[in-house]
């Protein structure tokens, strides 16, 4: 039997396979490049980058939880100039797509990153709307349909590359948020970002994280992620990139069946630096086992 065709198309960009990295868990690939062949990845999604360098949060930034972890990195990044100088040329040496994840504390910051990337050689943009909107008292951009609509519209106007909008799961109605993003021009939707969580050091009687709360990721959150991907797949027409707790090919197939065209591997990289490759091989094995010629033939094929 021939190897199945793993190609997927996300907003006009063809990926050799659906396996991507989750922003912030893979740097820009330099470190994991020592463990895997980056050419094998469908796409590398880079760590969130802002218009200027951000220092991130102080104090302890990670807490282990049952089947997961909390992080409060706070989007530390070297700023778009440094990113363009170093990360793009590094990644361009590989035969993989580059997705730049974008952070911002104001609409203006998001826009300035997008504009700065206008003439740069990157394939897709991913707008992280889980950031706090400082002008609105720190409420997360992604929790309100109107804010989402506004931000996505303005960013989309200025973007050359197709725009993925990455949703936060900390909302009542994820489908409504996804629809708002789509209506405002999102070319694709990715989800989920981390769930807001907390851990307490009972011996010191203090939160474990310097930032008190942090983002929960890892296999613990997979059921929530999968439910949201399923709900969003039933609400929008644009392609979806699913993530949240994927550690195996089986997990990835669940997301594909639920309606994701691409899938991203995050926390699993920390447990196993070859996690992306294991996921890729697992998806391929599944297709072979069920005589599927093309991965796109199983996307969204859940029997209800």
């Amino acid at each position: 039997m021939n190897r199945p065709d793993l190609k997927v198309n996300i907003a006009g960009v063809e990926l050799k396979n659906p396996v991507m990295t989750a922003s912030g868990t893979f740097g820009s690939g330099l470190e994991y490049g020592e463990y895997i062949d980056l050419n094998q990845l469908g796409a590398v999604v880079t760590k969130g980058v802002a218009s200027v360098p951000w220092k991130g949060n102080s104090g302890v930034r990670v807490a282990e939880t049952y089947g997961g972890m909390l992080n409060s990195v706070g989007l530390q990044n070297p700023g778009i100039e440094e990113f363009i100088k170093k990360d793009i040329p590094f990644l361009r040496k590989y035969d993989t797509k580059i997705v730049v994840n974008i952070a911002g504390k104001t609409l203006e910051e998001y826009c300035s990153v997008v504009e700065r990337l206008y003439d740069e050689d990157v394939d897709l943009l991913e707008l992280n709307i889980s950031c706090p909107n400082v002008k609105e008292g720190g409420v997360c951009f992604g929790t309100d349909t109107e804010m989402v609509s506004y931000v996505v519209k303005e960013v989309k106007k200025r973007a050359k590359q197709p725009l993925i909008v990455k949703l936060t799961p900390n909302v009542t109605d994820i489908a409504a948020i996804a629809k708002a993003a789509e209506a405002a021009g999102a070319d694709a939707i990715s989800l989920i970002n981390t769930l807001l969580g907390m851990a307490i050091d009972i011996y010191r009687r203090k939160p474990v994280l310097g930032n008190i709360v942090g983002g929960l990721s890892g296999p613990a959150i997979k059921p929530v992620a999968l439910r949201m991907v399923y709900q969003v797949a039933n609400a929008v027409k644009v392609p979806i990139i699913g993530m949240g707790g994927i550690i195996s090919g089986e997990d990835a197939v669940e997301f594909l069946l639920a309606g994701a065209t691409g899938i991203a591997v995050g926390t699993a990289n920390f447990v196993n630096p070859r996690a992306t490759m294991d996921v890729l091989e697992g998806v391929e094995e599944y297709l072979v086992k069920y005589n599927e010629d093309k991965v796109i033939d199983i996307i969204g094929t859940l029997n209800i």
Partner: protein
Amino acid sequence: MKERLTGIIKKNQQLVDGIFEMTLSVDTISNEATVGQFVNLYSIRKDLLLPRPISICEIDKENGQIKLVYAVVGKGTADFSQMQEGDSIQMMGPFGNGFTISEDTKEHVVVGGGIGVPPLLELVKRLKGDISVYLGFRCDPILVKEFRMYTDKVYVATEDGSNGVKGNVIDLLHKHPPKATMIYSCGPKPMLKAVADWSKEKKIEAQLSMEERMACGIGACLVCTCKSKKDDDWDYKRVCKDGPVFWRDEVMWDE
């Protein structure tokens, strides 16, 4: 390509109450490792996802082995302490930059506190010239005999006075002032800060091995911060990749 490795446990025994010594057969690591680096150990418990960073205490290239000394402080280390000879353990490494050893430096001062002591053993083995070792513990000292094999000047302090001088390593440094052109130190943050201050006052260069909670261990996730000077400003460096050993003058203590 690098990969996750399987170490075979050759020995795993308690040294003093709550502190264990583990010898692992894992030649990829023993071949590559340098002094002051660490390895990441994975638990077999599926509820614990993140690796536990443990410094390399001794490197035995010849036999393809490394020795680790670890304190049982939580679930992960408790599990490690239960493992038996012959068991295998998933691990990665060696990681981090390690200590800088210069041939020109002849007068070395080594300062360790508690569970920060073990990584200094391999260091002392490799230093050449005059070596003074200052070790502080809460109560039960570890590895003192081993350090004495490489230098006569090993000073020990315990907080409760049950062994050596009652007090801490700074008290020891005052009591037995060393000849020194370079200080190497590993231990709890307050101790490192005190060593930094002392060494600054004495105008001696110092290398400090820092500790921070980690996730990836290889520099990709940015959770393991060391607040560091950068030009007129500062920056969070990564303990796992840019460290764990930092030059005293980079490190900022105001956090």
